[in-house]
């Protein structure tokens, strides 16, 4: 990370250490999670899906959290830190627009100025979320450099932060970026797993046999897995975007096909060429379109604790429709990747019980899915 930002990162680290166990901070966050974001989100036994895939499946309904995805968990935590650090302006990057919406939402709640960087390609395919952000009073700044997706939006957000670091807090949306971000974002997302654990224990009197979550940069997956890492009986599966296929060169599977490198201040698996030039990722799901992954996922892969696999655009699209028809739940295309894993050869026995992190709802995707399906007629 550029020297210009190091003091801000140190300031953030200090603020986080100071407040994370501070009773007033913890209580303010708890009230917002409950009364504002609608937590705890339900754990729903999906009977028809269970029948279809051949094992019992619960859905952790992050799609029912305020703004329609798990992203609000992190932005609520970070905005409270920003306010305590006296920052007047918030910036964020966004891919699918869910993090942008969640950031614009909390900025509105606290009356702070908000600028969201979004790739031009993503603006095109996530029109609805762009409108939502503007409605919430945020300014959406189009990014045309590179592939016009999440990586490039992140570059621009970092450049903005370098220039305005004294007045601005950068709410990064996933478990990436320089320290302390990967830890801080993970901590704010572990509520997904801790709720799941409690809800599941109450319902079933034991731990689940497996957890499945999609992995782009990986915040919902880390949030889901973290409280189960020491429970060896719980199989953990992270599902990356195979895009048009792992051998097509058009995918977002950094863990499957990346090599060690540095992007946005983290050392992790990165999609790059022999010279270390970062390659463009591809996925039908804008939120999985990132050529790297949170460093903790890289660690969990190397340690063998989490199985990482991938599903294609095609399989995700199928799962998107299948879940809609079977359960009356339209999932985000990102979350559809986790569902798609269960529709294929998942390796869970019939009597095992699995929890899928349904990280977001699919309203934002209906137009682009309609376009794809329309073209096939």
């Amino acid at each position, binding site marked *: 990370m550029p020297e210009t930002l190091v*003091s801000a990162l140190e300031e953030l680290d200090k603020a986080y250490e100071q407040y994370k166990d501070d009773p007033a901070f913890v209580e303010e966050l708890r009230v917002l999670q409950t009364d504002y974001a609608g937590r705890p989100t339900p754990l729903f036994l999906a009977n028809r899906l269970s029948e279809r895939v051949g094992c019992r499946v619960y859905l952790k309904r992050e799609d029912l959290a305020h703004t329609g995805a798990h992203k609000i968990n992190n932005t609520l935590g970070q905005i409270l830190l920003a306010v305590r650090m006296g920052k007047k302006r918030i910036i964020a990057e966004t891919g699918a627009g869910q993090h942008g919406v969640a950031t614009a939402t909390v900025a509105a709640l606290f009356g702070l100025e908000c600028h969201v960087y979004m790739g031009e390609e993503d603006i095109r395919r996530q029109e609805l979320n762009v409108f939502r952000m503007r409605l919430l009073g945020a300014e959406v700044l189009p990014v045309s450099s590179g592939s016009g997706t999440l990586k490039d939006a992140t570059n621009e957000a970092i450049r903005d932060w*370098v220039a305005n670091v004294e007045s601005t807090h950068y709410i990064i949306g996933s478990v990436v970026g320089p320290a302390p971000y990967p830890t801080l974002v993970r901590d704010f997302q572990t509520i997904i797993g801790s709720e799941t654990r409690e809800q599941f224990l109450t319902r079933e009197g034991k731990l689940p046999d497996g957890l499945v979550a999609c992995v782009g940069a990986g915040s919902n997956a880390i949030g889901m897995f973290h409280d189960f890492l020491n429970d060896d009986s719980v199989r953990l599966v992270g599902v990356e975007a195979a895009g048009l296929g792992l051998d097509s060169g058009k995918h977002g599977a950094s863990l499957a096909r990346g090599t060690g490198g540095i992007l946005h201040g983290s050392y992790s698996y990165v999609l790059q060429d022999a010279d270390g030039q970062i390659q463009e990722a591809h996925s039908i799901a804008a939120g999985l379109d990132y050529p790297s992954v949170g460093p903790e996922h890289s660690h969990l892969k190397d340690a063998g604790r989490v199985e990482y696999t991938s599903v294609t655009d095609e399989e995700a699209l199928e799962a998107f429709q299948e879940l809609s028809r079977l359960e009356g739940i339209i999932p985000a295309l990102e979350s559809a990747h986790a569902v798609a894993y269960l529709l294929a050869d998942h390796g869970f026995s019939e009597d095992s019980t699995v929890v899928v992190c349904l990280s977001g709802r699919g309203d934002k995707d209906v137009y682009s899915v309609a376009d794809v399906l329309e073209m096939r007629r």
Partner: protein
Amino acid sequence: MSAGKRTGYSPGAFGSQGGASGLTALFREAGRPLLMPYAVGGYPDSKGCLQIVRTYLQNGADLIELGIPFSDPLADGPVIQGASQVALRAGIRPTDVLDVASAASSEGARLVLLSYLNTILAYGSERFFKRCAEGGVLGVVVPDVPVEEAAELQATARAQAVDVILLAAPTSTEERLARIAKAASGFIYCVSTTGVTGARSSLRADLPEFIARLRRHTDLPLAVGFGVSKVEQAEEVARYADGVIIGSALVDMVARGKDFKAGLAAAAGYLHEVSNTPSFSR
């Protein structure tokens, strides 16, 4: 390209013995601030880049900074990003930029490179600094490596008598400035502004104070870059800094010429003017 092509003096004679490095000596011997123009390595292609470097040399450049194009240059503004993309699309690889550096060095240019860390890691840091040394490159600016992460890179570079140039920013705390000053070698790259590279209509009002703060911690030469574009700005910065780095303004001049020749002429005229101001010609 051979190790014997190094010109002027041998960096090895200084750096590794705890004294001043070759770069530091270059500043000391000049007795005036150094004029340090920047070019994107391999822009618009290898041949064109070498012509740009020659133009810089003929018009008063003391030390030339050559950037290795990177896909995601976080510290750079639109002008250098754009030129980097042109070079990358032309198929320029880090090894090509090292070749340009060697050629320029054999023609008498004193050079530092600018490279993002991922490029060096992918190349292999030992191999990278070895090639730098063989090509007469005196130092490497790594804009995304702060002082606490620099030690290993510095040790690898030092073994080849190449300096890793550390950066200091106006936002660096007093404690950090002391730490940077202690770890630095060659010179310190002082970022004139919060923000990315690119021309600014005015520089930060507290820039002289920032340089003075850092000066209290070190005798190393302090070069100022990021945002210096106008002749008067260069002249002004030269009153309190040991070197003035001019990047985006020059890259932009070359890019905007109605053809390459016209762009080169514009850059030549500008550098000539800067180098003849009292600060640089004394």
